[in-house]
């Protein structure tokens, strides 16, 4: 696998260039670039406040003045297009005088509270005032205006969001926060109020600044007007150092900078990378570093002694593990050992895990997909094929048609979501979203098609049939037998079953067929569905008819969910690996088990039978986040021996005989492979917490206790990883239309409501519960409910709601939980979303391994 993703191969026309002279230097820039762009390209310093590389220039602050020959006025370089033969001066007397006047204007009412301002040391105003504002005498004669929080208060600071504090006195009204929120994120929760000199930046009336991207607004504020509650007064910025890091949660691979001192990491900020993130990061990536410093971390190994978990040394814990693993292996054979690893761990750890099981213990029972059920068992599944397609995040921004199916995109891929917005606003691209629920993408979609629950493949088959009927399918694909391949097999029947009209399907198909560079995305609602293979086939058919899988244009993929899912796929952390992967691993591991392995589903049923006896769960928490709480719990309870390694105690560690403490991504050097197959390194920002170890080291200690060694030194482990990544080829296949038969799910019982379990807006998986900043946004497990349903049931945000499982006579019947209602302004209809991020509320007790849609009943609990 190459470390950069394949960009879509468009022939770039020769770029038209413009030549101009800046400060006597001849410079050539792309046509359309601004004078400021030209200066930046040549590292000629020009001060700015309101300019941002990813936002439209508005020319508000007027700090970036330059002098241009033949123009009588000073020009704002950020909003003046570079033209041929322009003669520009950036540091003339007139420029400096103009900039000085601006600094003087800004300082007129700006408080001189730098000593107590959190921005001190990284403030654009401090820097620019130092460079341009100095003069011997002040012309100010008036008291500075002071804007206080409200009439009844003497405080300047106002909390306008869960993590955002505003000090209006310091605001220089560059409007970057408001502009970024609208332009880049499509959010309207911060705005400018009042007029002129009285303008204030504030949360929208009655609300808070609480979008998934809110932290970016603080980051781009040039002064200390917006500060983050997390960082305020923690440390002065000049006492910190930075290290590069990567979003450890999402598969997007947004680039981060960690700010640390000798003791610990204090914050994370973006580190602009146009390929993945454009410098915007989700709040989860921003505040997620707090898993490193959380009080809830496990600090020492724990061993179950007579029913109580007791802190022990690594030696003692390893002694127990090696003794029990050996016992099981000797008495029952290696295939009774199984391992499950989290795709949020780094590449070295994943590989060491594979090596421990396959190379040292001799078991092929490894998997990284414990969040999902009904996994494909054959190596050339269509799901696997579509999940391994190459994909470029940045190419999304230049796609002319984007088609998203079965994905709550903003929650699964916050950065891909922003790229779709960029495509729409910069390229006027078309976005078609097809989902069983309304998502945030709705507000920028050309058409948001809501199909009936559990009819994902029917909708896709509708698109397939429409492409064929309209004569828009790729001519080289044989569509002759289509009637026999699909059920239902006419467009009309598909439309009727999925609930999206023929006209809308036709329109979408037409637009896709006419697209030059389409992007097709399938998300978690597909990969998490038990019908995933069937849906994947339908998705494949559409991509085939558009010529995408044959490489003729565009891109299509089922997107990987976690930071390193793609790495786990390339390193082969699942039983159904390809022959090439097997060959490379065999070569690296010396010994390799012959017997085919059990995947996660098979491990669970094997544990309830006689096949699986001991298990190592590494960083994963299936009891909380896997489908079907009871089934998973029962399986793990049936084991003879269970070891769980994690950062924190979880419902899964609660079942363990031994618990091992893992270090977080901020405590060691490692790398993740993002959903594009781009491998990016992250660096340690602090010492490891307590006795915790990075995964690879913990695994090597386990191996050593069993008489093996996984690596002599880390570079040899790294070399093996690189070899696997380099030699990994996504599966290829002969292309022909696949069969996709739809079976209608059983009708739900009366009064029951469909429910999806997944991530809350500000959480990801089970670790973010440790991040106090994210708890400010989503403090507990919520039941998201549409405004319409809420009003019918007389439920308001914050009400307690009893949720009861409704599965006829099957497994989880009778399960109930009390959740806090959260009335969503996005959801529509009856579908509920429950957050699976909180150990106290295992909402997966409502989900099942054998039906596509889970149904529950809900009752409001009346306050006493």
């Amino acid at each position, binding site marked *: 696998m190459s470390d950069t993703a394949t960009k879509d191969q468009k022939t770039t026309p020769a770029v038209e260039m413009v030549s101009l002279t800046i400060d006597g230097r001849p410079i050539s820039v792309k046509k359309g670039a601004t004078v400021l762009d030209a200066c930046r390209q040549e590292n000629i310093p020009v001060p700015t406040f309101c300019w941002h590389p990813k936002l439209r220039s508005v*020319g508000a602050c*007027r700090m970036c003045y330059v002098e241009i020959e033949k123009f009588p006025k000073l020009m704002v370089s950020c909003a003046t297009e570079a033209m041929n033969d322009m003669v520009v001066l950036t540091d003339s007397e007139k420029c400096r005088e*103009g900039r000085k006047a*601006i600094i003087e204007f800004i300082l007129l*009412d700006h408080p001189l509270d730098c000593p107590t301002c959190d921005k001190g040391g990284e403030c654009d105003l401090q820097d620019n005032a130092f460079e341009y504002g100095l003069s011997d005498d002040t012309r100010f*004669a008036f008291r500075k205006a002071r804007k206080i929080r409200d009439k009844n208060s003497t405080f300047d600071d106002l909390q306008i969001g869960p993590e955002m504090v505003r000090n209006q006195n310091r605001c220089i009204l560059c409007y970057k926060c408001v502009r970024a929120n609208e332009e880049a994120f499509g959010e309207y929760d911060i705005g*400018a109020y009042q007029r002129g*000199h009285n303008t204030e930046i504030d949360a929208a009336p009655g609300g808070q600044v609480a979008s998934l991207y809110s932290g970016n607004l603080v980051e781009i504020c040039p002064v200390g007007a917006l500060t983050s509650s997390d960082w305020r007064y923690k440390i002065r910025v000049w006492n910190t150092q930075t290290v590069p890091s990567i979003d450890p949660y999402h598969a997007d691979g947004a680039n981060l900078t960690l700010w640390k001192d000798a003791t610990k990491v204090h914050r994370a900020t973006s580190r602009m990378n146009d390929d993945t993130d454009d410098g915007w990061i989700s709040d989860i990536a921003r505040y997620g570093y707090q898993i490193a410093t959380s009080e809830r971390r496990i600090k020492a190994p724990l061993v179950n002694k007579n029913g109580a978990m007791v802190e022990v040394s690594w030696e003692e814990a390893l002694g127990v593990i090696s003794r029990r693993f050996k016992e099981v292996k000797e008495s029952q054979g290696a295939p009774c050992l199984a391992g499950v690893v989290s795709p949020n761990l780094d590449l070295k750890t994943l590989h060491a895990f594979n090596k421990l099981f396959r190379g040292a213990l001799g078991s092929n029972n490894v998997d990284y997909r414990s969040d999902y059920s009904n996994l494909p068992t054959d190596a050339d599944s269509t799901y696997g094929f579509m999940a391994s397609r190459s994909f470029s995040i940045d190419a999304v921004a230049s796609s002319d048609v984007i088609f998203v199916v079965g994905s709550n995109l903003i929650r699964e891929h916050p950065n891909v979501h922003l790229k779709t917005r960029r495509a729409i606003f910069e390229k006027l691209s078309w976005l078609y979203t097809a989902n069983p629920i309304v998502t945030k993408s709705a507000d920028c979609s050309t058409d948001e098609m809501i199909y009936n629950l559990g009819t994902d493949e029917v909708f896709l088959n509708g698109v397939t049939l429409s492409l064929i009927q309209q004569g828009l399918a790729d001519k080289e694909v044989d569509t002759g037998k289509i009637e026999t391949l699909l059920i239902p097999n006419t467009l009309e029947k598909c439309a009727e079953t999925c609930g999206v009209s023929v006209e809308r399907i036709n329109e979408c198909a037409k637009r896709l067929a006419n697209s030059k560079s389409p992007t097709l995305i399938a998300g978690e609602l597909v990969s998490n569905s038990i019908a995933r293979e069937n849906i994947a086939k339908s998705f494949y058919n559409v991509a085939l008819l558009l010529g995408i899988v044959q490489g003729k244009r565009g891109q299509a993929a089922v997107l990987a969910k976690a930071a390193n899912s793609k790495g786990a796929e390339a390193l082969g952390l699942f039983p159904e690996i390809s022959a090439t992967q097997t060959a490379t691993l065999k070569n690296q591991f010396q010994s390799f088990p012959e017997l085919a392995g059990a995947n996660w589903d098979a491990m669970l049923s094997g544990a309830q039978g006689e096949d699986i006896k001991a298990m190592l769960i590494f960083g994963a928490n299936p009891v909380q986040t896997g489908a079907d709480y009871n089934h998973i719990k029962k399986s793990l309870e049936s084991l003879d021996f269970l070891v769980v390694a994690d950062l924190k105690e979880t419902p899964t560690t609660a079942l363990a005989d031994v618990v091992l403490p893992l270090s977080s991504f901020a405590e060691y050097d490692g790398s993740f492979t993002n959903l594009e197959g781009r491998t990016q390194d992250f660096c340690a920002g602090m010492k490891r917490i307590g006795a915790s170890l990075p995964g690879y080291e913990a695994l090597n200690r386990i191996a050593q206790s069993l008489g093996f060694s996984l690596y002599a030194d880390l570079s040899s482990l790294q070399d093996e990883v690189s070899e696997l990544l380099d030699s990994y080829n996504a599966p290829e296949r002969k292309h022909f239309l696949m069969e996709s038969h739809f079976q209608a799910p059983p009708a739900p019982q009366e009064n029951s409501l469909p429910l999806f379990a997944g991530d809350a807006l500000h959480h990801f998986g089970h670790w973010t519960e440790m991040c106090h900043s994210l708890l400010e946004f989503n403090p507990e497990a919520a039941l998201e409910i549409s405004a319409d349903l809420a009003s019918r049931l007389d439920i308001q945000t914050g009400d307690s709601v009893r949720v009861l499982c409704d599965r006829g006579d099957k497994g989880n019947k009778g399960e109930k939980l009390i959740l806090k209602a959260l009335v969503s302004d996005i959801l529509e209809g009856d579908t509920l979303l429950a957050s699976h991020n909180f150990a106290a509320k295992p909402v997966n007790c409502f989900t099942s391994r054998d039906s596509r849609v889970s149904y529950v009943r809900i009752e409001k609990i009346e306050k006493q």
Partner: protein
Amino acid sequence: MAEHKLLLAHTDDPQHKTVAGYVANGGYRAWRKVLTSMTRDEVITEVKASGLRGRGGAGFPTGLKWSFVPKDSPKPRYLVCNADESEPGTCKDRVLLECDPQAVIEGMAIAAFSIGSHLAFNYIRGEFDYPIEVFEKAVEDAYDNGHLGKNIYGTGYDLDVVTHTGGGAYICGEETALLQSLAGHRGMSQMKPPFPAVEGLYGCPTVVNNVETLAVVPHLINNGGEWYKTFGTEKSAGTKLFSLTGHINSPGNYELEMGTSLRYLIEEMGGGIPEGRKIKAIIPGGASCPFMTADQIDTPLDYEAIADAGSMLGSGACIILDERTDIVWATYKLIKFFKHESCGKCTPCREGTKWLTQLVERILNGEGEESDIDKIDNICHNILGRTICPLGDAAAMPVISVIQRFRQDFVDRIKAKDVLPMEQFSFN
């Protein structure tokens, strides 16, 4: 040159507001002629030939502006009538909206046709309760009589006119801010380029014209561009409305041929200054124009001559200040207005107007220092030409002119250190 009533010809006829009355006076002939017998280019050529220049303040040639709308753009186009009239002293558009709304509608329709627009907006100042009521009724009337709507006069051309009322911001008269406001955003001016003709309302080609500009258009079609040129001067063709206010015996709206002298407006139309007092200063074109002095009273009222005299014709709002006027106080009133109306987007305008207000207020309060005068002048020059839209210039220019022409008044005021109660200086 003297008074000539083209636009104000029927202000005394209450029936003229209705379609019936308007048609009886020859109305809607031009619109019918355009739709049945003219091409878009022919309309634009006629308007260009007339030499008509925008009456909203900037005096930009109207036909030329229309011709900037791209012919090949796949986007819809919009015509917007600017009826946000909020400049202190200006009240001419109001009279047209109240007394001749059908002419405004007809002008809007012809302008819309010339740029291929099927949707025209009238953005009316929010405080204009009565003009809004009259105009909305007039639009309804025009629809009812087939002058607006679908398939007008059976030619297949559709046109809708929508009235939008502002929220009471002077800045929303500036065209880019107006379009922001019309689209539902905060009314703040935008950098140009892109110009509205290329990227305006909702990012689509848009022409913004002043009420008076549009009201002239039917006359051009009926009588021809060349006919219009027979009025006024070579470069400033036609007639123009002047709103005469201040220390004057008969304030009001007067329509003069361009090039008529200021003296004619003041003495013949306005009946001179009360009690025969002397003139101290004249603001010829609205609050944003530099002050002129009494000795410039013979300046002709056309774009060029007024510019040569160091001021601007602007919107034609002529404010007379007599010899009793405290110039410092007048400056204060002006700058305070601009401070209050600055949209707050760009630094020099937002901060500069506030600072100037503070300084002039301090002088008024008898606490000024002589160095304040140069400071004020310098601050004005840090605003002038450095802002996004002309509001900054509008604030700076009159103040600069005052300091230049009435510096001694400031010096005296500062030296005297007296605090005079403000009420004493109200206009009478």
